[in-house]
Every structure is written in structure tokens, then in C-alpha cells.
């Protein structure tokens, strides 16, 4: 068993165990702590898969930002009875049954996914697209679009099972080969950033300090 295999099983066990911990714990503060480990384990999985930038973003945005937001929510609302809100045993049984069935269906559905494994062959440590290429494709720079890469970086020896590269480069329309439409992510990136801005302004507006309704009723 080599190091990557060992690391995968350690990280997967950490992530899965923490995710189950989020579900079974009744204490909301402990659930937040389990969620921290689950998200950090997922970031480790991303690093293991070679997606450095996504892993770093997961750590910065998710663990550093979203989780802090959730913890603030817990702190602001965790008073007395709300820390431990329990559900009945029957509801637990039903939820556990539904969860097991759902997991069984998903597992049976995805287990035969037999994409060739390049984990341990000599090509195993090829990097995924670096953060520079990711940034270029977000900006729509031509070099980072799939058809450009396919045309200029065509593999001399394609990996087993990789699709024929030729069919990506050209699309035959009326007998004339023309390049496929470029796929770039400038517009989605822009939409997402504006969306994030609007959402944060809206959240600040929603959560601003207000008088309680009872105070307003007493005043009027």
C-alpha cells in the first residue's frame, strides 16, 4: 500500500466519520466542530486529488469564512434549550432507514464507475490544471480553452481510455471543419461575483439590528 492510498483512506475515514458525527450529535456546538473536521478533510481530499487551488479555496472560503459565519450564528442563537433540540426515537429510526436506503442506492449506482485508474502508473503524479490555467480559463484567455489545449497539447501517447482528442478540436459543419465555440468562464465568473456582492448586501440588510416586534407594538 503506497502513501497516496494510505492517505486516501485516512482522509476518507476522517471526512466520513466527521460527517456522521454532524448528523448524530444532538448538541449544535458539537455539530459545528464536527463540520469543521468534515470540511477540512474534504480539503485534504482535494489536495490528494491534485486540485491545489480548489483545496486552498475550500480551506480559505469554507473553513475560514462560511464555518466562522455558522459558528457566529450558533453563538448568537445558542441559548439554553436551543443547544439541545431533540427529536423522538421513531423519527430517528425513520431517518436512519431512509439514509441507509439512499446511501445504498447511490453506492450501487456509482460503484461500477470504471474509468481507468492512473493512480499508480508512471503518469500518476501528473498535475491537474494549475491555478494559472484555472485563472486563464476564468478570464477566457484563449490558451486555456479546451479546444486550444486539445489542438496544441495533443498527447503523443494518449492514456488508455482517454477519449480521442481529434473529435474535440474540430466540428464539422456542412463539410467544413471549424473550431468549436470557445468555452470560457468569464461571464459565469462575473455573474457569480456580482451575485455574491448582491447577496452579501442583502444579508447585511436582513440581519441588521432592529427593535423586536413586541417593542414596536408597545410603542405604537
Amino acid at each position, binding site marked *: *500500500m*503506497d502513501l*497516496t*492510498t494510505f492517505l486516501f483512506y485516512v482522509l*476518507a475515514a476522517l471526512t*466520513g466519520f466527521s*460527517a456522521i458525527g*454532524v*448528523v448524530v450529535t444532538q448538541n*449544535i456546538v458539537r455539530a*459545528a466542530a464536527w*463540520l469543521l473536521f*468534515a*470540511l477540512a478533510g*474534504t480539503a485534504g481530499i482535494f489536495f490528494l*486529488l491534485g486540485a491545489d487551488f*480548489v483545496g486552498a479555496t*475550500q480551506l480559505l472560503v*469554507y473553513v475560514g469564512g*462560511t464555518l466562522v*459565519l*455558522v459558528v457566529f*450564528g450558533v453563538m*448568537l*442563537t445558542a441559548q439554553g434549550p*436551543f443547544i439541545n433540540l*431533540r*427529536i423522538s426515537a421513531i423519527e430517528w429510526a425513520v*431517518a*436512519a432507514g431512509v*439514509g441507509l436506503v*439512499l*446511501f445504498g442506492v*447511490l*453506492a450501487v449506482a*456509482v460503484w461500477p*464507475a470504471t*474509468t*481507468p*485508474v492512473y493512480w*499508480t502508473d508512471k503518469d500518476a503524479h501528473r498535475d*491537474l490544471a494549475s491555478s494559472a490555467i*484555472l485563472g486563464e*480559463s476564468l478570464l477566457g484567455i484563449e490558451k486555456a480553452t*479546451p479546444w486550444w489545449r486539445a489542438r496544441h497539447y495533443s498527447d503523443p501517447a494518449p*492514456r488508455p481510455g*482517454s477519449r480521442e482528442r481529434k473529435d474535440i478540436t474540430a466540428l464539422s459543419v456542412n463539410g467544413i471543419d471549424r473550431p468549436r465555440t470557445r468555452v470560457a*468562464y468569464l461571464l*459565469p465568473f462575473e455573474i*457569480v461575483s456580482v*451575485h455574491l456582492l448582491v*447577496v*452579501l448586501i*442583502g*444579508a*447585511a440588510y436582513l*440581519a441588521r439590528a*432592529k427593535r*423586536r*416586534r413586541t417593542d414596536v407594538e408597545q410603542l405604537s
Partner: protein
Amino acid sequence: MSEPGLNHFLILGALLFTCGVVCMATKRNAIGVLMGVELVLNGATVNFVGFARFNPTFEIEGQIFALFVIVLAAAEAAVALAIVLNFYNNHLTVDVDTAEDLKG
């Protein structure tokens, strides 16, 4: 223990997804429901990055989609927490079973 292939990562994603769904269904605390949503989104992200690693034609797209999911999850968490805090201000509770103002 075999070496991890694509289906191992898909199983991990399925486990995270299932935990998230069960968490959303069983938690009575509104913030607990929010944590379930985070787990579901994480399961989807694991699938995307797994496909980016194992399918050469999906190499950039998988990572880009994962980034979009992370950013949208941050936005969703911000709005959901604002709503929860507002609900807490108005009703002095975070129990989702008591949110029945719209009940007919």
C-alpha cells in the same frame, strides 16, 4: 484495501450527500439544517474534483464548477444565517418546527 479509483471518491461523495440529507431532515435547529446543506454541497464538490482528476476531458471544468459551488455555498450561508437571525429576533427561537406562520 485497493488503491483508490474514481468510484472510491464517488462513494465518499455519496456518503457526504447522504449525511447532509439526513442532517437536513432530522435537525430541529435551523442552523443544523444549514450544516446539512453544507455537507450536501461538499459531496457534490468531491464528485466534481474526482471527475476532474480521472477524466482528462473534464480537467478544468471540474475544478471551475467546484470553485463556483464553494462561492455559491458561501453566499447561501450568508443569506440563510441572516434569515435565521431575523427569525430568532422575531420569535425568540431557532426551532424550525415552530415556524408555522404561513400555515393555512
